[in-house]
């Protein structure tokens, strides 16, 4: 029995010694150098090397959104909503958008600078969708002019005229304070006029006559186009008679209180022309016509708060 215990103890010792010898061999095979376990215990923590793929794309994490606000947790992708929608051509304003009333007295300024004719009128239009503006104008015209190098003086007292038409606003979806429009008018006038200081000469016969034609009447229908124009157009249409009209405009819009606007309008009139025939009785035949193209630039002044579209 005693021998048996000695043998078992000897086997255990041997087994222990064998086990220690075997673990040392494994470590030696893993580590490239031949340091001992004691020495490696003082070298630092045990590390496990891994393979690194340099071609693998790097993952960028986003910690803030596109507006700079921090996210609750980092994300790999920032999604953005597609906010582009098809533009609608329909007007954004309601059908009835207010009434504009104006007074045109700008020719007073030009008469002060020598202009020989003037027209003063009141006008009103209705804003439909801020797109179409049916317009009615009524006023008085006056002229007392002797054209340069011509042989007559043309006079007309205050004469009534009326125009009806509409404006087409290209910026119908924008703020009503800013308009870029083309206008069309049909005008009518029935007036009396005198042609005086007529001088007709005949050089060959050395004769001269001075005449006057008074109490002439005319009925006039004419068309008018108001077109926006910039500085280039103004120079292109050189020689045209220009008119400037200062207008005070009262605008009423149902959802908002009335406000007062001051509008500066520049009219460029091209070749205002009257053609008529004098018959034996001294009256002018119907058929007088007038062609007129006016270019209009509109600026708004004194308008601090733009009107928001009515939703």
């Amino acid at each position: 029995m005693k021998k048996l215990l000695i043998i078992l103890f000897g086997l255990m010792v041997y087994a222990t010694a064998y086990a220690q010898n075997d673990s040392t061999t494994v470590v030696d095979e893993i580590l490239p150098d031949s340091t001992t376990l004691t020495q490696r215990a003082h070298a630092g923590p045990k590390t496990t090397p891994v393979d690194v793929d340099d071609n693998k794309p790097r993952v960028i994490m986003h910690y803030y959104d596109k507006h700079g606000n921090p996210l609750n947790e980092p994300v790999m992708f920032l999604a953005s909503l597609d906010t582009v929608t098809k533009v609608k051509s329909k007007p954004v304003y309601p059908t009835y958008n207010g009434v504009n009333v104006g007074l045109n007295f700008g020719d007073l300024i030009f008469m002060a600078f020598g202009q020989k004719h003037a027209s003063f009128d009141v006008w009103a239009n209705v804003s439909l969708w801020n797109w179409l503006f049916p317009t009615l104008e009524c006023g008085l015209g006056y002229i007392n002019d002797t054209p340069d190098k011509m042989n007559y003086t043309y006079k007309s007292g205050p004469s009534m005229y009326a125009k009806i038409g509409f404006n087409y606003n290209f910026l119908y979806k924008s703020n009503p304070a800013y308009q870029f429009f083309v206008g069309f008018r049909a005008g009518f006038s029935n007036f009396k006029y005198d042609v005086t200081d007529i001088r007709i000469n005949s050089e060959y016969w050395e004769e001269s006559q001075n005449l006057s034609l008074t109490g002439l009447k005319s009925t006039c229908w004419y068309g008018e186009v108001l077109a926006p124009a910039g500085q280039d157009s103004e120079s292109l249409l050189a020689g045209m008679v220009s008119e400037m009209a200062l207008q005070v405009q009262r605008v009423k819009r149902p959802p908002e209180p009335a406000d007062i606007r001051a509008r500066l309008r520049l009219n460029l009139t091209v070749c205002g022309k009257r053609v008529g025939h004098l018959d034996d009785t001294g009256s002018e035949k119907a058929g007088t016509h007038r062609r007129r193209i006016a270019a209009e630039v509109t600026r708004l002044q004194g308008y601090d708060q733009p009107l928001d579209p009515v939703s």
Partner: protein
Amino acid sequence: MRKLLYGISATVACGLWASSCSDSCSDNQNALPLAGFYDSGGPAELVTIDSLEVIGVDTPSDSALSPASESKNQVSLPFRIDSDTTRYVFIDRHEGSGLRDTVTFIYTRTPHLVNKECGVSYIFDIRSITSQGIFIDSVTCPNGFINNANTQNLNIYFDVMSAPV
């Protein structure tokens, strides 16, 4: 929408074009009769007349309206403006011939405001035209009136056999 914009643009362009054509007077600023010369027996073509002198009757200076040294197939014949009758003498100066034909125009005058650019001029409504002489066969005014239009409005028909062609 696009068609409307095209229409507006076309209207504005036409208006500008039409208006740009009326800045100046393209016709005469006075009614000036212009007579063309024709062969009374030939085709309706202008013929050139040599050595023909044209003088107004009772002109203050007795100056020739058109000298004989110029060959011509047209001549302007201004009418008197303080009388309703105008007379012209056509003198054949060919080889010292000195033949004279007299043409008399009788008309009425009406002042006429043509337009702003052309001003006021007369309209001459022709009442009668007579000619006396040998080489002028007849004188006509096809329209019956003469205004400031810059066109030929009188025809003078010459007897070519007698005229200094």
